[in-house]
């Protein structure tokens, strides 16, 4: 199968008060189209940083990242923003919904940047929310939903533009066992039925079991297989 993502000799350091903090050391990794990859590792090992680089919300200090044929490490800020809107769906640990908007409106947000008509947007939002099992909660506000339901709204927001890649940073980290299972089942389904390529950061072995492939990060290096 073809590589959807190619990470070539990527290093990343942060600078704080003129002190260099190395986070990733010369990492190379390929992720195939249709993969469900779990990135594991201790806290502070650089999982989130690697995920952010692949998803185009941060830039590597060295090396190249090619996603779906685009060298995203060479894109400027606004080109990168467009690229993200078209190619990546984001799922966060703390859902990150806009609290003053309803479930429907939160899911609609990414579509506001497209040329879709109001009716088309409505149809797509309803499809996404129904897919995550919230067809009957569309006009609830985040406050009226449980954590598991909020995360499902976030997943609907991530898939509503039909991106090739889904990135999830500890998507079950803030959920109880039962809700976590539901979320993982949903992600498995998105991977199998809808052929979404998924990269999931987690430090929960139960969660990692659901992935097809598990990689470990330790102090900025990929270890084992």
């Amino acid at each position, binding site marked *: 199968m073809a590589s959807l993502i190619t990470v070539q000799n990527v290093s990343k350091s942060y600078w704080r008060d003129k002190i260099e903090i190395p986070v990733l050391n010369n990492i190379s990794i390929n992720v195939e189209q249709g993969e469900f990859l779990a990135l594991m590792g201790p806290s502070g090992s650089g999982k989130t940083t690697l995920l952010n680089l692949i998803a185009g*919300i*941060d830039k590597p200090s060295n090396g190249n990242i090619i996603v779906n044929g685009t060298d995203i490490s060479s894109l400027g800020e606004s080109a990168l*923003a467009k690229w993200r*809107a078209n190619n990546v769906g*984001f799922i966060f640990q703390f859902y990150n919904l806009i609290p*003053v*908007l309803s479930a429907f409106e939160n899911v*609609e*947000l990414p579509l506001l940047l497209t040329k879709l008509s109001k009716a088309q947007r409505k149809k797509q939002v309803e499809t996404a929310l129904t897919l995550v099992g919230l067809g009957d909660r569309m006009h609830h506000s985040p406050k009226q939903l449980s954590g598991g339901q909020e995360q499902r709204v976030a997943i609907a927001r991530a898939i509503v533009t039909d991106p090739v890649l889904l990135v999830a940073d500890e998507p079950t980290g803030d959920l109880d066992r039962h809700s976590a299972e539901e979320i993982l089942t949903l992600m498995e389904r998105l991977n199998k039925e809808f052929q979404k390529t998924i990269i999931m950061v987690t430090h929960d072995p139960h969660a990692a079991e659901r992935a097809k492939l598990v990689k470990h990060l330790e102090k900025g290096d990929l270890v084992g297989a």
Partner: protein
Amino acid sequence: MKILKLIFANALRHKLRTFLTVLGIAIAVIAFGVLRTVVTVWDSSVDAAAANRLITRQAVSFIFPLPYAYKEKILNVDGVKNVSFANWFGGVYKDKNNFFARLCVDAETIFDVMQEFLITPEELANFKKERNACVIGQDIATQYNIKVGDQMVLEGDIFPGRWEFVVRGIYKPKNKNTDDTQMLFHWTYVDERMKVESPTRAGNVGWYIVLINDANKAAEISEGIDAIFKNSSAETKTETEKAFTQGFVSASGAIITAMNFMSFVIIGIIMLVLANTMIMAARERTREYAVLKTLGFSAFHLVGLILGESLVIALIGGGVGITLTYPIVAGFEQAMPKGFFPFFFIEPITTIIAMSAAILIGILASIFPIQRALKTNIVDGFRFVG
């Protein structure tokens, strides 16, 4: 228009904070409006003075009288078109808190020189005909519910005794800043009684009102008039009505300057209040801005969100303030002694300045939060803990 909805939803997120900010802006706008109104009312009494009118008064002070006999002499000066005169009567109408000017005037000429007092020819004729007739300004007529034919009784102080007048005319103001709170009656009526009761005070007028042909010659004509009475027992000082009025009000000029200054200080203070609210709001939403950027929203969208919210709060505050300024200025006018300010109105320019200031404040208050939201990159935005 989802963005607009988000702007409003954001503005209402902390209802109490937004309410207090709106209230603060509204109060500031009201204070601004009231202060500006006092200032403009003050200025317009100077503006109302006609450029082609001179006032001739006693050289030492206008509290000293001038002889009636000067009238003919002034009339003979080159460039003088007409001469009238007036004298301050004072007195009390019903209650000593009822302030309005009560003047003994030359019935024959007063409406010829005071052309901004509009009176019908019939009423003027009736006024001239009757010794104890008087004419009142429209505002007095409404305020005290007086009609033509009614009696008005004054209790004299400068001119002691009981004075009865019959209203024979009501004049209308020609301009918005024309004083329509004067009561005018025959100088001769008062003077005749003085001849009997206090002969030394008879034959005196307070000041002459001189209508000239050419406003540009005001200086020469003034000199000409004063030259006639040089070395007489009552020397005169002639100046334009504008200069005269200015001298009258300039004693309070320092207060007015302070009020003027304060009205703009208030705007500065309220800008800080709104800026503070916006900075807090934008700080709390750091993570949400990071989410929006992640989803592909641009700097342009974030500017719209923050600036929009700031403007919404500023405009609501400004709108509420301006709306309330009208009844409050009206109440303020009521609370002042009656007739203390002859004309009290909110100039359109005051409303425009207040609203423009609200918009400007809205823009300025959003600059700092916008700058912060734009320069915080996504990764730092997510790592930010309030």
